[in-house]
């Protein structure tokens, strides 16, 4: 595994102000944070020009720790706030950090509409299959049959395939991997940041303290091993018979298309309206 430059990550943190962090030992959220920072560092993005927007949840606590322009907004509304920022200052890199509940339950409407507009946001969705912050209620991403504090008899809801949801809504760049595959995650986030349009990276995360415990998934290392053993790259899955793919987490980039981006479309409209220079 590539060496993780710890010092580099430290440079990007508000280490003098906001630590210790709120996340439990064994939580995947820190791994995703590391991947986000390394991707940003690789691209040499100007941090004055980055706005990180989140909703509410364990995952959405991320922005407070990093030294960018940061906006910890309302539950479900990160993408709506981010839309305002991006539309007003299209030159800024707007990154949305959100949870499965935040983005697909209470914030589902904003999620699909930003994808439909193909607004240039980079959405990193930390899917831990549960509402972590409020103590373990089921989310639209809790697998059928699983336990949550509000599904004591097992979850009767079918769950979203969040990547399919984004593709269906019109997202032009959609990828998924797990927190175990930290380097792949970093690469996916980097590509998403480079993509001009709405991009989603779904990071499958472990919440060992709540989801793991409720569903007897073992401790944090066991949940990480499970991500390794129960996921397959899309390419590999294509060559396998369906029964060997069923129930596995598909990893990789599902769609990557360059389409008209929303702030560009708005700019074009304005250009047509304003009289040419010298007129």
């Amino acid at each position, binding site marked *: 595994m590539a060496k993780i430059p710890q010092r580099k990550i430290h440079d990007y943190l*508000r280490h003098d*102000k*906001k630590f210790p962090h709120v996340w439990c030992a064994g939580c995947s959220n820190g791994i995703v944070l590391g991947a986000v920072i390394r991707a940003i560092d690789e691209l040499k993005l100007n*941090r*004055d*020009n980055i*706005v990180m*927007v989140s909703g509410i949840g364990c995952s959405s606590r991320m*922005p*407070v720790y990093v*030294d*960018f*322009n*940061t*906006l*910890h*907004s*309302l539950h479900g*509304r990160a993408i*709506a*706030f*981010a*839309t*305002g*920022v*991006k*539309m*007003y*200052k*299209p*030159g*800024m890199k707007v990154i949305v950090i959100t949870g499965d509940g935040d983005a697909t339950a209470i914030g589902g*409407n*904003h999620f699909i*509409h930003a994808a439909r507009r193909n607004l240039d946001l980079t959405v990193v969705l930390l899917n831990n299959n549960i509402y972590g912050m409020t103590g373990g209620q089921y989310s639209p991403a809790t697998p059928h049959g699983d336990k949550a504090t509000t599904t004591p008899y097992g979850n009767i809801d079918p769950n979203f395939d969040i990547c399919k949801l984004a593709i269906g809504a019109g997202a032009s760049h959609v990828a998924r991997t797990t927190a175990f595959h930290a380097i792949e995650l970093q690469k996916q986030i980097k590509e998403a940041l480079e993509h001009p349009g709405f991009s989603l990276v779904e990071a499958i995360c472990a919440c060992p303290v709540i989801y793991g415990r409720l569903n007897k998934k073992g401790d944090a290392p066991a949940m990480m091993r499970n991500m390794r053993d129960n996921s397959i790259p899309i390419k590999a899955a294509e060559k396998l018979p369906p029964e060997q793919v069923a129930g596995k987490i598909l990893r990789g980039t599902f769609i990557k298309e360059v389409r008209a981006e929303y*702030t560009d479309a*708005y*700019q074009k*409209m*304005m250009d047509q*309206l*304003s009289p040419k220079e010298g007129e």
Partner: protein
Amino acid sequence: MTKEKATSKKTEKVEAIVEKKVTKAVIMQGNEAVAKGALAAGCDFFAGYPITPSTEVAEILSNELPKIGGTFIQMEDEIASMCAIIGASLAGAKALTATSGPGFSLMQEAIGFAKITETPTVVVNVQRMGPSTGMPTSPGQGDIMQSRWGSHGDAPAIVLYPDSVKEAFQLTIRAFNLAEKYRSCVVLLMDEVLGHMREAVTLPDLSTVRVINRIKPTVPPQWYKHYDENQKYLSPIASFGEGYRFHVTGLTHDDHGFPTNKPNEAAKMMERLNKKIKHNIRDLVQIETEHMHEAKVAVFAAGIMGRASKEAVKMARAEGLKVGLLRPLTIWPFPDDAVTKMLKDVDAVVVPELNEGQLFHELERLVRERKDGSLHRLNRNDGTVITPAEILTKIKEVYNG
């Protein structure tokens, strides 16, 4: 950045849009006056969701904003609209949304966010009658208390309420100015009949319009605090992208904007929110009075009912009755001092409003002494207005005790 616009050029364009109407009177709708007022105040961002009777504000701005380098976006709902204007404002925009009751209800959580994060934003609520969908094209004044208490957690409110098309223009500008100066969400309440009423107005020359912009920080980034109040409890505000890299959260926060659970820091934050209103009450409260110095009976009314009351007072005075009018242009913070004085000075106060008695409660709160004037409600809540003649009848009823 393509969207970084040259301010001077933009002002010229705004002037061109508003100016055509400057010298002579033009016929204009209340909602149109709001849109024009917003542009005159420097509004360069609108996010909204269509709803009667406010939609014209969005329609007009969708036409005008792209011409001057501003942004218009129709969001997926009112929650998103309110959140988007907060995001835009944090990036530096003078941002507006417009709605009516059902949308205003949806916006409440985010309005609280704008207040706790002290983010300048303007919300226009063209009220309709009734709870829920109610009567979309009929007047009602049911949102007076909602505009004060609608968002959870007990934060103060700044709410303005015009009575004419011309005043809708003026108070929209003032709403932006107060939002910028006080770093808060300012609500402009309108009546359905005002939103859709057309009347002749002469708009002022744009060069005479006083536009206030937010105070910008002068310190280097490492010294910047997102909440750094002065003696008047007002603080400078940086925008995203200016090198300050600050944090904004709806959690209770310290002066830097970082979350805190410490009671003393939470108390300081709440104190600032309240004190910036209380200490600047004279700047915030605007009232109009007519004949109050010699009134035996007063009428207290806001918005379109203030307008009807003015007419009723005129009729009463033509009959030789000593009647005066007190009309708040700012309903929140409530004009406590003026009302207290009125209660002392007159024998009786008539309070006509298109609800079950919301301003009336505030007057009741301020009755302190036995000899204060008696209070008389006059309510209607059926989608029609109370006419000047009806107000006159009530005045006469209470005039002789």
